[in-house]
């Protein structure tokens, strides 16, 4: 079923995603996973990484009106070693792509990627005719959540981050391994 065939109500349905959890998992491990996931999801620290306009909207999300910190994205970390999630805010060009990959590699596990804005998703306004824009950040690093918009509103970024939290909530040790294997670019 494509996204057009999806009923409006189902977008807001928080149960369906939780059902994706692998069936038949160990009861003991599940409760450990629950505790770990609860901690991980409520302390997602983003990396201060912004290349263009989306970065300003990301700053605006951290500002008083929208207040990122309500959902546990408490501080922006300047070092990738301390960050949990990298929000790719803005266009990635060929010269920047190796650095983005390196930043991603420097982050410690568990790490997540959010592609914010049209440029990070597909190249956006620079998809046609441009000779140096990476057409979608998933060519470089695996992406967990895509947030459309040019640039997305702060509310959209918050919604995307909440979706990421839901994704983290359903993770288990084995699903994480599987995800890493499928996201490997080696």
């Amino acid at each position, binding site marked *: 079923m494509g996204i057009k065939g999806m009923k409006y109500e189902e977008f807001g349905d928080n149960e369906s995603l939780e059902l994706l959890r692998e069936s038949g998992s160990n009861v003991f491990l599940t409760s450990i996973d629950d505790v770990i996931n609860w901690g991980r999801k409520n302390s997602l620290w983003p990396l201060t990484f912004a*290349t263009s306009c989306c970065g300003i909207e990301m700053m605006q999300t951290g*500002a008083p009106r929208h207040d990122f910190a309500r959902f546990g994205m408490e501080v922006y970390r300047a070092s990738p070693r301390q960050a949990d999630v990298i929000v790719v805010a*803005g*266009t990635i060009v060929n*010269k*920047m792509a190796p650095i983005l990959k390196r930043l991603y590699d420097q982050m410690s596990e568990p790490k997540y990627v959010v592609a914010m804005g049209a440029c990070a998703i597909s190249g956006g*306004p620079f998809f046609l005719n*441009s000779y140096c824009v990476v057409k979608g950040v998933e060519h470089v690093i695996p992406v967990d959540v895509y947030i459309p918009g040019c640039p997305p509103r702060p509310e959209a970024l918050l919604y995307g981050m909440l979706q990421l939290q839901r994704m983290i909530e359903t993770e288990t040790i084995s699903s994480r391994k599987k995800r890493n294997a499928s996201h490997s670019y080696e």
Partner: protein
Amino acid sequence: MEEKVEIIATDEKQEFIVNMGPQHPSTHGVLRLVVSLQGETVKNIQPHIGYIHRGIEKMCESITYPQIIHLTDRMDYLSAHQNNESVCLLVEKALEVDIPDRIKVIRTIMSELSRLQSHQLFWATFGMDLGGQTCYFYGLRDREMILDIFEETTGGRMIVSYNCPGGLMYDIHPNFQKRVKDFIKYFRKKLPEYDTILTGNVIFRERTSGIGPLTLQDAISYGITGPSARASGLSCDVRKHEPYSAYDKVKFNEVLFSEGDTYHRYMARNDEMRQSMNTIEQLIDNIPEGPYAVKMKPVIKLPEGEYFQRVETARGELGLFVISDGNKNPYRVKFRSPNFVNLGVLNHLAKGFKIADLIAIAGSLDFVIPDMDR
């Protein structure tokens, strides 16, 4: 990979080469500075750009004139209105279209609002660079109000694409005048708060006064424009010298200082916020009646020739140079962007100061990196 931090320690000079950026919170984007240090003192700075080079100039050659404004929006995203205005003014000048007063006045108000929000963001990030986290919250709180006004009228918060060749995309929202007036009233009360928290702060004054002085002679020879040059006493405001839109009808002062250090570059922007508010107040009550757009031909073709148009963005002078061969696409487009030129002076300013001062100096030049790389 080429982006390796090189540490070279020769015996006699003890010079360290440290890589700052491209991912660094104080470079405001993806600017990379290769800094040579002797102890803590900056010896030389070599800026590397191109980490956000999107090829906008080349892209412009394959699209039509009304489409170009959607790319100039994303160039200097904090002065999106002024960037668009340069394209629109150039096309209107080339086709000799008469623009009604209503459009001119609305464009001027929007440009000044745009300048205001840009300087608010400058204030917020400059304070944060120097360790004042509160500035970040204060500045961005007030900036949201301007973004609300933009959103109501144009549909976009930051990337507005409101100007188009021949006028505006749509008419202003019925609430526009009221909300702008409310905002000015609110912000006039808040601006003294800005001064209390940052301008008068002893630590801030110590860290900025006398740091990175730029003489008038150097400002001219490096081609610096905008508030950074006006802090050194160079009168370079395009709004005064070559008025476009409705700037010839309003009275405002060109903010000029003579010292040219980091503190005065900050003050030039701070005072420009007041001037912007004055400009808006003069115009907001007298928006003339009339159409919001002139009817243009469906396919805009410029006559063969070379055209140049300059506007004053929040960071300096933006020049747009177009060569047309008579087709619907330009033959060549060149932007003279203020940030690229202002970057050239960084080495001259920061040489001999401490590395912590480099952050203050780079912050006071108020870089927007996508405008630099285009």
